């Protein structure tokens, strides 16, 4: 064992302290970086050398730089993010949908529906009164317009959802491609025995982002790469990524979403995907909005058919009969959107039929009264009054909206909880880093001191 060996030992201490400082510096710099995992340097003694029967240490080596990371928390966080973004997408849509049915609104469908019946009740008591006739015709027109605009607004939500599917599929594909590329880099870095901590952090962050669009199952492979599965189908495998592509279904005019490989083979995911914001958009477009629209259509259809049946049997102020009040819809589907006054009565208040008998003109208001009485007739879907049916629709939108909001809130709490766990495991603590800074600085100074001591000893030796 020579003095020079001790020189090298001191050098290894200084080098290890330098690595420590550099890791601490990196941690401190990334203290606020989302998705960054705190890194730790593993110090190990450099082994021993037997010199004249003595086993003497060779100093220290900075082995690996590892990251503090909990794979379980990480994968749950990604999954819950998909759930949160699903619930948040639904919440946003419902916030817009339920705004149509605010309580007490003068221009909402509920107010206009009762206004329609009331106007015809009033007309029945003064069937020749021009002002009442104008009012009844306006009320019927406003009711039709409100049905139509409510249906249009519902349809718009479905269209917005439809449009978002294509955009988000493209963004998700972009992320999948980047993740596949990181897979390749990580596998090659780690094959050479290196650390790929930052690349892994970056990949974890991208998987989290991807999860907001669509839920993925993450399978870690032996070479450090991950396989990502969407609904059991591989989206990313090793360095290869498949694409999420959309194309318009000619039958419905709506986007269908496929998983497409390089060879052009396609798997249709439209009816299976119900997670993440893409899944929420599909669910809104294919299930939630159509169900609400169907209820609205049924109400509009039954009301129009019943009102027309009564109205066309009555007589207008001009003595003519057989005129519809509303345009007769061809089918239940689309009845609300297409609801409008019939051409026979539009712009002609005198054409409104209030009388049941031409001999009773103008004082007979029994047909107008019969139209007003439809308010309490069980005519919708075979058993509900129009007002009850509408009240049911409002309550349904309300409860669906309320559970969407509650789910979003709850999922936010779960994500917050998991994020807190992740922060506790992988986050950077300034206190720890401050301590490390002092620790490594002290170690560096001490090793330097050893170095200068050895140098003095060598000087002493040379002066002999």
């Amino acid at each position, binding site marked *: 064992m020579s003095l020079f060996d001790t020189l090298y030992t001191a050098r290894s201490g200084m080098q290890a302290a330098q690595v420590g400082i550099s890791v601490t510096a990196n941690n401190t710099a990334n203290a606020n970086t989302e998705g960054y995992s705190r890194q730790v340097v593993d110090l190990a003694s450099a082994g021993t050398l037997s010199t004249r029967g003595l086993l003497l240490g060779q100093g220290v080596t900075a082995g690996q730089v590892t990251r503090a990371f909990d794979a379980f928390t990480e994968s749950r966080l990604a999954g819950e993010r998909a759930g949160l973004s699903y619930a948040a997408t639904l919440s946003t849509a419902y916030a817009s949908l339920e705004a149509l049915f605010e309580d007490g609104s003068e221009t909402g469908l509920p107010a206009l529906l009762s206004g329609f019946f009331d106007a015809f009740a009033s007309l029945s008591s003064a069937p020749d009164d021009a002002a009442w006739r104008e009012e009844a015709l306006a009320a019927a027109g406003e009711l039709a317009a409100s049905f139509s605009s409510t249906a249009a607004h519902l349809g718009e939500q479905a269209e917005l959802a439809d449009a978002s599917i294509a955009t988000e599929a493209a963004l998700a594909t972009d992320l999948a491609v980047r993740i596949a590329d990181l897979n390749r880099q990580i596998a090659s870095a780690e094959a050479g025995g290196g650390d790929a901590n930052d690349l892994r952090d970056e990949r974890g962050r991208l998987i989290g982002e991807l999860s907001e669009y669509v839920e993925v199952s993450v399978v870690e492979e032996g070479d450090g790469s991950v396989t990502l599965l969407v609904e059991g189908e591989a989206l990313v495998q090793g360095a290869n990524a498949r694409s999420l592509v959309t194309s318009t279904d000619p039958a419905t005019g709506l986007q269908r979403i496929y998983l497409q490989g390089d060879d052009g083979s396609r798997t249709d995911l439209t009816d299976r995907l119900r997670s993440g914001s893409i899944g929420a958009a599909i669910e809104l477009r294919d299930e939630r909005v159509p169900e609400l629209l169907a209820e609205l259509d049924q109400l509009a259809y039954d009301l129009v058919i019943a009102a027309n049946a009564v109205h066309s049997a009555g007589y207008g102020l001009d003595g003519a009969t057989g005129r519809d009040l509303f345009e007769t819809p061809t089918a239940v589907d689309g009845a609300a959107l297409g609801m409008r006054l019939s051409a026979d009565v539009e712009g002609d208040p005198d054409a409104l039929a209030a009388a049941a008998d031409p001999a009773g003109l103008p004082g007979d208001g029994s047909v107008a009264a019969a139209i007003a009485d439809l308010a309490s007739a069980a005519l919708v879907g075979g058993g509900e009054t129009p007002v009850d049916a509408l*009240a049911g629709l409002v309550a349904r939108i309300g*409860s669906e909206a309320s559970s969407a909001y509650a789910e979003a809130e709850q999922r936010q709490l779960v994500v917050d909880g998991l994020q*807190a766990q992740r922060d506790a495991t992988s986050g950077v603590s300034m206190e720890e880093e401050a301590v490390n800074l002092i620790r490594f600085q002290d170690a560096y100074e001490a090793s330097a001191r050893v170095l200068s001591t050895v140098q003095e000893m060598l000087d002493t030796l040379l002066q002999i």
Partner: protein
Amino acid sequence: MTRVTQLSRQHALLAHLRGASGRLFDAQVLAASGQQVGRPSDDPSAAGLLVRLRAEMSSRNAEVERLTLADLQMSATDAALDAATQVLTRIQEIAVQMATETLPPEDLQAAAEEVQALHDELVRIGNTEYGGRYLFAGQTYDQPAFQAEGTYVGSTSGVDLHLGDGGVVEVGTPGDGIFRGAGGGTDLFATAQDLIAALQAGDSDGVQATLDAVQEGLDQVIAARVSLGTRQDFVQSQAARSQDQADLLDADVRALSEADLTAAYTELADAQAAYEAVLQISSQALSVSVFDFLR
């Protein structure tokens, strides 16, 4: 022990800020709108119930309006029948006087002329107009009920008021029953004409013969007034009932939809204080660093 890291602090403070500002926003909306059930999701079942209650309330209010207008029309009809009663009473006086006394022909002629004037007055009463409607013309109330000589040209169907519960009350009774005795009553106009003819002929027996008919006519008009009064009572009490129901419904709607303002303002103050506290704590917590205390 859970490690507390930079990101733990930031994320936790952010979550608290989000919570406190969300609560403050909700409290602000509640206090500003005064509405407990603004959007259906605030209380879905109450929202559904509110749609029903508001529809019911609006229909009651509309009914009150119709009943009030009908009441006014019936009052006008009553006034017309009152006038008819007075005319008939005067005819009766003349008939009694002429039947019991022997008078010179010029007095008889004058009496005949007065009865003719009263007859015409009766026709005018039969054609009373109120709010553009001929009150005794039945459903064809846009045309006069009687021609000048007393022929009924109105409709034989009465004008009905339809109530919200499907009930019907007649507000416009055709005049041919009241004035012409259609359906087995006394024809007031014909009776007056008979009296005029008897007076002009100086036929005191003939005048005597009309006395019964005049009395029956008077009874007939009074009976019509009584019937009208009964229906008007019903209309008035129905209006009062509907108004009561509308008021009750209004109270229910308010109870369901309106916020308790005291509670709302208390919550607003609470939420405001909580939000300010979180802001204060955040700014303090984030500005403290271990490095401030090292060297």
